[in-house]
């Protein structure tokens, strides 16, 4: 059927025009077409009007004859015609068909339609010769198939895209819901502001464009949307406007902590530019940290008190010690001859213990100071540092073995203190050996630098390991090795402050290995 219409449309005008001209000149039919009776003309107009109004359907008034040459007329519909059925049939049979056969041969089948409503007979004709149609058909079918396939593909694509678009839309909606839920359920305050500048370009105020649910709770400002900050707090500190103004104009995000005096609050704030630069809008995420700040202030006060207390204690503890030691010495100096040996021994013990307690107080003070001291990182050549530490050591008979040491980034004086304590320990605890040996080395262990001080001295029993790094804990009696038990605690605290670790291995009477790790500097020489 598709093929039929195609051919029809393509050839109808050409065939019809030629046939119509011949028909007009035909002695019998020409007259029939030209001389339309007046009542027919009226009826035609009536029908045309009806047709224009859509009151009647074309199919029912249009006279139609379907004719196939071999079977005669197989279908004819009269409809509303100005011509009689007989006239139409004879027109087709006696004129049109012979004309077509004459023109196109008898093998062809013809489709004709005769429309009697127009000014003259409008005759549509076409050949539907088998071969011709078939050939056209195949080509057209093939073309149509391609088109159809393309159409289907297109449709498939459109469907897929539509689905994807719907999916995206759904995701977008979900994500929007998620974010809006997040913004409104999170504890942090969030708002978007629009900066207001004076005519000199100085930021003087801002307007709240959007706020989240926590905003009110975090600021104490009600219904802020659309309002200006100065409406709430006319004396809001200038630095707030300066900072946000800078963010709006430069687009560089900032994080800071600041006090808002009029709101009686401290804030931790992150602010970044929102949207196009010319909008001068800033998105602000903030947290009320008033409680934390108050705690911090309190803690600082407590720390200060503690510091004052420590100094006062150290001062007050020293004075009597000084007296004990001083007067004991006076006793020896002024009354020495009157004392016997035992008397002098006892005075010596008094003095020695006073001195020891003095050292203890000094160490304790140094240890407590470590907790507050800030570390200053510098590149340290550990070879040079170790060399200077070794020079400062009291005379000893130990053989010192040092390899090439790694460079570290740490606080010079603190790391030096670590090396002093470890090396002094190694020398002290190996001093009883026939051939004391102290080895100092370093290695890179998976990106961390490990420094080791090894001796062949008294060592220690690993079962007391947990006491090793604790303050005032000792594994040896003062009679064996003097000391107060602060050195390793200081080492541990210093290394911990650098983010490193300290550990040790020991075998009683065979030696000890003390190691600490430090972060590797970014550019290591």
């Amino acid at each position, binding site marked *: 059927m598709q093929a039929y219409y195609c051919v029809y449309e393509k050839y109808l005008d050409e065939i019809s025009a030629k046939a119509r001209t011949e028909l007009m000149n035909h002695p019998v039919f020409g007259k029939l077409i030209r001389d339309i009776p007046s009542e027919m003309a009226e009826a035609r107009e009536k029908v045309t009007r009806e047709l224009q109004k859509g009151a009647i359907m074309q199919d029912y008034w249009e006279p139609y004859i379907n004719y196939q040459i071999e079977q005669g007329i197989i279908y004819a519909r009269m409809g509303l015609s100005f011509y009689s059925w007989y006239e139409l049939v004879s027109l087709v049979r006696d004129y049109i068909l012979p004309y077509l056969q004459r023109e196109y041969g008898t093998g062809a089948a013809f489709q004709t339609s005769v429309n009697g409503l127009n000014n003259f007979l409008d005759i549509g004709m076409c050949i539907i010769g088998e071969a011709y149609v078939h050939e056209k058909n195949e080509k057209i079918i093939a073309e149509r198939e391609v088109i159809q396939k393309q159409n289907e593909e297109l449709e498939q694509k459109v469907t897929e895209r539509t689905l994807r678009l719907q999916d995206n839309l759904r995701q977008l909606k979900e994500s929007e819901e998620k974010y809006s839920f997040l913004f409104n359920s999170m504890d942090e305050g969030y708002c978007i502001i629009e900066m207001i500048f004076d005519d000199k370009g100085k930021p003087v105020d801002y307007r709240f464009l959007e706020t989240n649910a926590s905003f009110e709770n975090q600021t104490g400002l009600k219904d802020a949307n659309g309002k200006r900050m100065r409406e709430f707090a006319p004396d809001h500190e200038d630095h707030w406007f300066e900072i946000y103004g800078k963010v709006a104009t430069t687009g560089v995000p900032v994080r800071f902590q600041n006090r808002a005096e009029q709101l009686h609050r401290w804030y931790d704030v992150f602010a970044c530019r929102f949207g196009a630069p010319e909008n001068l809008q800033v998105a602000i995420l903030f947290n009320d940290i008033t409680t934390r700040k108050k705690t911090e202030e309190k803690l600082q006060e407590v720390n200060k008190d503690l510091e004052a207390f420590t*100094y*006062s204690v150290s001062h007050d503890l020293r004075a009597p*010690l000084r*007296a004990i*030691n001083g007067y004991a010495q006076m006793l020896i100096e002024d009354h020495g001859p009157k004392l016997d040996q035992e008397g002098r021994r006892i005075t010596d013990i008094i003095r020695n213990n006073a*001195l020891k307690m003095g050292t203890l107080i000094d160490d304790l003070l140094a240890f407590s100071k470590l907790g507050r001291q800030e570390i200053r990182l510098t590149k340290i050549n550990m070879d040079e540092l170790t060399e200077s530490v070794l020079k400062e050591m009291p005379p000893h008979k130990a053989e010192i073995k040092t390899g090439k040491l790694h460079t570290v980034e740490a606080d010079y004086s603190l790391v030096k203190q670590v090396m002093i304590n470890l090396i002094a320990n190694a020398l002290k605890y190996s001093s009883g050996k026939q051939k004391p040996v102290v080895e100092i080395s370093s290695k890179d262990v998976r990106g961390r630098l490990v420094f080791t001080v090894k001796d062949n001295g008294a060592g220690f029993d690993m079962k007391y390991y947990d006491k090793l790094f604790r303050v005032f804990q000792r594994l040896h009696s003062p009679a064996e090795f003097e000391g107060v038990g602060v050195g390793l605690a200081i080492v541990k605290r210093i290394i911990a402050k650098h983010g490193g670790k300290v550990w040790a291995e020991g075998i009683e009477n065979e030696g000890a290995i003390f190691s600490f790790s430090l972060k590797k500097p970014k550019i290591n020489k």
Partner: protein
Amino acid sequence: MSMNTQVEILLVEDNMSDAELTIRALNKKNLANKLVHLENGQQALDFVFARGNYSHRIIADTPKIILLDLKMPKMDGIQVLKEIKSDHRTQKIPVIVLTSSREDPDIQECYRLGANSYVVKPVEFDKFLNAVSELGLFWMLINQPPV
């Protein structure tokens, strides 16, 4: 005013034991023969500015050096130092601050206020003796201020 009446060392120290030890140390170096020991800050200021019990003194008759303990009850050493160093009549007197600890945060403050030196009072008597007498000698003999 004669050289005979001039006090060479004013020791301001509330702890009697420390005072005795200090005087003993200075004595050993023959520095304590013209020494005045006062026990609190108020007395020290009265002495230096010739007020109260010391109104018979003359301000211009300044001690050659002042050894000043920081930690004293009531008026402490810092306050004494501040007053001495902020008066043009007395600001040239060398003041050596005595403290119990090298870690004392007041040391910085003392230097800011114009202290000339400080001595940590060590537990060990010998060290104390040396420190005090050396510093005393230094300021009295070498760094004698223009009168």
